[in-house]
C-alpha cells in the first residue's frame, strides 16, 4: 500500500491515507471485515473532514446502474455512481433527480450519507425522502438491506449518518417526471434581507428557490439579494427552437481553474467587487427566461476545480440552519460577518420545509451557506458564530464542517445519543471512523 494525500472539496484538512478502490460487492464485504479505521469515500465533494481516514475505500469504480424503470421512474444503482452520469441516462427518458445539491459531481452514496438537499427542499424534502431501499455493508462484512420499513434504525442512521453505520452499497430511489430538460427561471432582486425573506414567502409555491446574498452590504441595503426561482419547463412552454428536442442534454462546456490562486487574492475588496458585479448584472428587478438545467442547478460545475480559487490553505464552508422564528439570528450572524469584513463569494440563503429526521441536517427554517478561506482568526470567529447559531436553536451541516466543537454538534442535534447508539450497534468496534467522527467524538476507542 502506498499512502497518498487526500482532501475534500475545501482542501482543508489534507491527510495521508491508503486508498483502495473496489468494483464488486463481495470485495467491499471482505474489505470491511478485514480493515481497521476506515471510511467509505466517493467523489470527495463534501467540504471538510468527513470521508477522510487512515484507510479509505473508494467507491468510484463501484458505479453500475442495476435497473431503471422508465415507466415508474425508479433507479437502482451502486453507490459510487455520480449524479452527472445519472442525468445523462435519465434526462433523455423524461426523468430528473428528485433532489440535487449544487454540484452534480457527487456520488449516490455521498448523497445518502450527507442526506443532501436542493433548491426544492420545501417541496420535495431531502434525498433520503426518495430512497426506497438500500444495502449497507457493515463493519463485520455482513450486508443488510434496509428501508423506511425494514431495519429502520439502520436506514435512518445511514441517511445523513456520514458513513458511520457501514458502507452504502446498492441504492434504489425514485425520480421526478419532467417534460423537458429546461427550467423556467425567474430572478427577482431584493433590496435587503427583509425583502428577500418576504419574497421567499410570496414565491413558496415555486418548486425551486434559492437566494444569493451579499453579506458585505451595510445599512439599508443590508442583505441585498437575488432570489432565483425555477420550475421544470413543460413542453409547450419551450421556445420554438427547443421544442423539437425537449429532453436534449446540455452540451458539455467546461473550463478548468488552471492553478491554485495565492490566498491573498481573496479579500474584502475583491469580494465587494464581485458582489457589485453580480448584483448589478441583473439590470431589471425581475428576469424571466428558459434555461437548461445545467446553469440553473450547477452554475459552478462549469468551472472544474473552482476550489483552487481559495488558495493553498483551502477554505471552509459554513452552513447552518435556524428555525423559522429565528429571523433575528440570521440578522445577527450576517451583521457579524459584515462587521468582520469576512465576505464570501458564495452566500446562499434558502428556506427549508419541514423535516425531523434522526441525524439529517435539514429542519424547517432558514439555511445560509458561506465560504471562508482558511486564515488566521477564522476559526475563532466561527466558534463565536456557532454560539449564535445555538442560541437561536439552530445547527450546522456536518458535510460542510471541518472544525466545530463536539459540544456544538451535540447541542444542535437533539437525537444525537440515539444516533450514536445505532452506530454502536452496527459498528461496535468503531472500525469505521473518519477524521470527522473522531473530532466530533462520534467514534471513540
Amino acid at each position: 500500500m502506498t499512502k497518498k494525500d487526500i482532501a475534500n472539496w475545501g482542501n482543508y484538512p489534507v491527510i495521508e491515507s491508503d486508498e483502495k478502490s473496489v468494483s464488486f460487492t463481495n470485495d467491499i464485504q471482505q474489505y470491511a471485515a478485514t480493515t481497521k479505521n476506515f471510511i467509505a469515500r466517493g467523489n470527495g465533494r463534501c467540504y471538510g473532514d468527513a470521508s477522510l481516514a487512515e484507510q479509505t475505500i473508494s467507491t468510484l469504480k463501484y458505479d453500475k446502474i442495476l435497473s431503471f424503470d422508465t415507466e415508474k421512474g425508479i433507479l437502482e444503482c451502486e453507490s459510487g455512481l455520480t449524479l452527472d452520469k445519472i442525468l445523462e441516462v435519465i434526462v433523455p427518458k423524461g426523468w430528473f433527480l428528485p433532489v440535487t445539491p449544487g454540484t452534480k459531481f457527487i456520488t449516490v452514496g455521498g448523497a445518502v450519507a450527507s442526506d443532501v438537499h436542493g433548491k426544492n427542499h420545501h417541496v420535495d424534502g431531502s434525498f433520503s425522502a426518495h430512497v426506497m431501499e438500500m444495502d449497507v455493508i457493515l463493519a463485520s462484512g455482513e450486508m443488510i438491506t434496509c428501508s423506511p420499513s425494514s431495519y429502520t434504525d439502520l436506514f435512518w442512521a445511514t441517511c445523513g449518518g456520514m458513513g458511520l453505520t457501514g458502507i452504502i452499497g446498492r441504492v434504489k430511489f425514485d425520480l421526478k417526471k419532467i417534460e423537458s430538460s429546461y427550467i423556467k427561471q425567474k430572478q427577482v432582486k431584493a433590496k435587503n434581507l427583509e425583502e428577500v425573506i418576504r419574497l421567499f414567502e410570496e414565491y413558496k409555491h415555486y418548486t425551486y428557490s434559492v437566494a444569493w446574498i451579499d453579506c458585505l452590504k451595510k445599512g439599508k441595503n443590508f442583505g441585498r439579494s437575488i432570489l432565483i426561482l425555477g420550475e421544470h419547463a413543460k413542453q409547450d412552454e419551450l421556445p420554438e427552437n427547443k421544442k423539437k428536442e425537449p429532453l436534449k442534454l446540455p452540451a458539455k462546456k467546461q473550463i478548468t481553474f488552471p492553478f491554485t490562486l495565492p490566498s491573498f487574492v481573496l479579500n474584502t475588496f475583491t469580494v465587494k467587487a464581485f458582489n457589485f458585479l453580480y448584483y448589478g448584472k441583473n439590470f431589471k428587478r425581475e428576469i424571466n427566461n428558459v434555461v437548461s438545467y445545467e446553469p440553473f442547478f450547477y452554475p459552478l460545475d462549469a468551472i472544474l476545480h473552482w476550489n483552487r480559487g481559495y488558495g493553498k490553505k483551502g477554505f471552509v464552508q459554513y452552513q447552518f440552519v435556524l428555525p423559522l422564528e429565528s429571523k433575528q439570528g440570521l440578522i445577527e450572524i450576517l451583521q457579524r460577518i459584515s462587521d468582520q469584513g469576512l465576505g464570501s463569494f458564495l452566500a446562499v440563503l434558502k428556506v427549508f420545509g419541514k423535516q425531523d429526521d434522526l441525524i439529517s441536517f435539514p429542519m424547517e427554517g432558514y439555511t445560509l451557506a458561506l465560504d471562508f478561506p482558511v486564515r488566521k482568526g477564522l476559526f475563532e470567529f466561527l466558534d463565536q458564530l456557532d454560539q449564535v447559531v445555538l442560541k437561536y436553536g439552530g445547527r450546522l451541516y456536518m458535510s460542510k464542517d471541518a472544525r466545530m466543537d463536539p459540544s456544538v454538534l451535540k447541542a444542535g442535534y437533539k437525537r444525537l445519543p440515539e444516533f450514536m447508539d445505532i452506530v454502536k450497534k452496527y459498528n461496535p468496534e468503531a472500525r469505521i471512523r473518519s477524521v470527522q467522527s473522531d473530532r466530533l467524538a462520534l467514534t471513540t476507542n
Partner: protein
Amino acid sequence: MPSTVLILGATSDMAVALAKKFASKGHNIQLAARNAERLKSLQSDLSIRYNITSSIHEFDAVKFEQHQSFWDSLNPKPDITISVMGYMNDNDKVIAEQGETLKTIHTNYTGPVSILNIAANEYMAKQQGTIAGISSVAGMRGRQSNYIYGSAKAGFTAYLSGLRNKLFHHKVHVLTVLPGFVYTKMTEHLNLPKLLTAQPENVADAVYKGIQKKKNIVFVKWFWRWIMLIITSVPEFMFKKKKL
C-alpha cells in the same frame, strides 16, 4: 446489423472501460470472466446506458480444456475478440511460489493464446473478423522487478505479431495494444508517475481507434514508444547493472 464484441477477462478496469466504449458506439457486448456472477452489474449497466444487448459468460483463462466449448457456446459469434486478461503480482512472490509463476504465465500468455487460436481459426475460415490483444510494454525487455510477467507478455506480443502476419492474408485484422502504466485496481498500490500513466478510458479509446484504423501496434500514450526505444537500446552489459 450491429457487430458483437467479445471481451475476455471482463472484470478488470480496462475491460470495463472497453465495454463502455464499444457499447457507446452501438456494439453488442459479450462479457467473459472466471467469475461470471461479478459481471451482472456491468451487464445491466451497459444495457441501460447504451441500449445495447450484453451477455455474460463464464470463462477461465487457465482451464484450457474448456476453451473450445466456451467458444462454441457463443451465439452469435463475436465479430471482434479482445483479450484483456492479465495477472500481475509482486515479482518476489511470483518467483518464490511455483503456483504464482505458472498463474502469471498462463493468465498472460498460454490462456490468451489458447482461446485466441480458436477465434483465429474461425475468423480465418470466414475471411473476416478482428482480434485485439492487450499486451504490455513490460514485454519489450525483461527487468529484474517484473520479468515473469514481462516474459509472458513478451511471448504474447510475439504471438500477436505472428498471428497478424498469418491472418493478414485471410483479411483478418490483429491489433497489439501496449499500454504503459495505467491506473487500475491492479496497480493502485504502486506509486506511478502521473505524467506517464494513462487512465483505463485512454486504453479503451486507443483500442477503439486502433481497430477503426486497422493499426498494427498501438501504444496508449505516444511517448511510451520512445521510452521503450531507449530502454530497449541500452546494451545488455549496462542494462544488467541497473536496478529496473
